[in-house]
């Protein structure tokens, strides 16, 4: 339970970054997706959901629009990434992590577009959805963060090492 709360708080801090820091600097760095993917790969999936829930909660509470659904979008995104990680990218390698990062970002953009279009059609929001102003740089930063985090976890812990016993031939 404590680790779940800690993961939720990490998500909250990631959301705080996106609300109070990211708009004021010219660095397209976002933390919710990298933290969630690292939790999916290196920890338990419940913590990935907790990070997404915490980050989405902050984005929704401090949204500048009359209605937003970031929590819903992030949970759906992490849910699909969880399925992809369990069905397709089953090996817990840095390549899987990077693939999940790219897939996850596109899934999040797709849900943002879909929910944004529906909310505009229902006159809930007046502003259309738009992709990040620097999508390629955003993807690059996300991938760099995931790769860095993965390597730090791999070198700092034994979670990513193979436990296959090595026997010399003969």
């Amino acid at each position, binding site marked *: 339970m404590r680790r779940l709360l800690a993961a939720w708080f990490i998500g909250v801090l990631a959301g705080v970054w996106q609300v*109070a820091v990211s708009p004021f600097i010219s660095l397209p760095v976002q933390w919710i997706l990298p933290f969630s993917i690292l939790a999916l790969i290196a920890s338990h999936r419940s913590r990935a959901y907790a990070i997404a829930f915490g980050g989405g909660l902050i984005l929704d509470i401090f949204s500048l629009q009359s209605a937003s659904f970031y929590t*819903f979008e992030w949970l759906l995104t992490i849910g699909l990434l969880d399925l992809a990680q369990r069905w397709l990218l089953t090996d817990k390698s840095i390549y899987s992590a990077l693939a999940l990062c790219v897939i996850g970002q596109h899934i999040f953009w797709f849900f943002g577009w879909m929910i944004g279009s529906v909310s505009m059609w229902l006159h809930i929001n007046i502003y259309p959805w738009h992709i990040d102003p620097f999508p390629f740089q955003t993807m690059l930063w996300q991938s760099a963060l995931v790769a860095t985090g993965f390597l730090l976890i791999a070198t700092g812990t034994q979670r990513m090492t193979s436990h296959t016993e090595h026997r010399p031939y003969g």
Partner: protein
Amino acid sequence: MIISRKSTTIFVGLIVSAVILLALPSTPFGGFMRWIFTPLIQATSRFTQAFRGAQTACTSDTVSRLQDVEARLRTLRVDYITLKTLQEENQSLRAQAKFLQASGYDSVGAHVIGRDIYADRALLLIDRGSNDHLELGQAVVSDAGIFVGKISVLHERLATVELITDPQSRVAASLVGGKQLIGVLEGKGNGAATLTYIPSSEKIERDQLIVTSGTEDKITAHLPLGVINVVEGKSTDPFLRAAIEPLLPVESITNVSVLRPTVLAPSL
């Protein structure tokens, strides 16, 4: 691959909780969470803006832009001196006659703790809300008294300010020193705004200052809006248009004041 029922239940429960808790308007849970996390957002935002301000340095683009602005400001010197004189006299009269109470407006300061500036929107998030007796449509001005926008979304402790460059923004405008409405200032996104529905009989030219006309509810008159940049249209057209340059770059807005009617001010 079998998906555990527990994982599915947790996932669906979180989704449903998120929808119920956040999709409902004026949810008490949302207000409670804002009360909890607003101080953290405020502190983080102020630190970021202070750090960013210390890092800002003059680039070659900024220097050429400054030179252009300085050249245009020279032509406004006479107007500024006249306005300054009137302002000082006005301040003196206000202090003597308690003008704010007579005019019916007072101001409450607020910090900008978030923003959403893109090509299709220009919004600021401030740390004041309905608890501070703010209302939708109230005018928001900068430290120097320049009109920057109106309140468009209101929560108990937070509010969203729709800047004049936002495509949804519409502000009634007149010329400085003029008494009649001459047009509507429409935001165009990307930091631009246009004055539309200018009667062709009006004599307007570049570098003229435009101000709020005071014909809108909750927005007082004579708040500076911007400077006329380019006038478009022919004399035979029923209406003219003019590109307006805002007086304040969005990046420099860190503290604002909301003008509210004194009848809503908290009693002491």
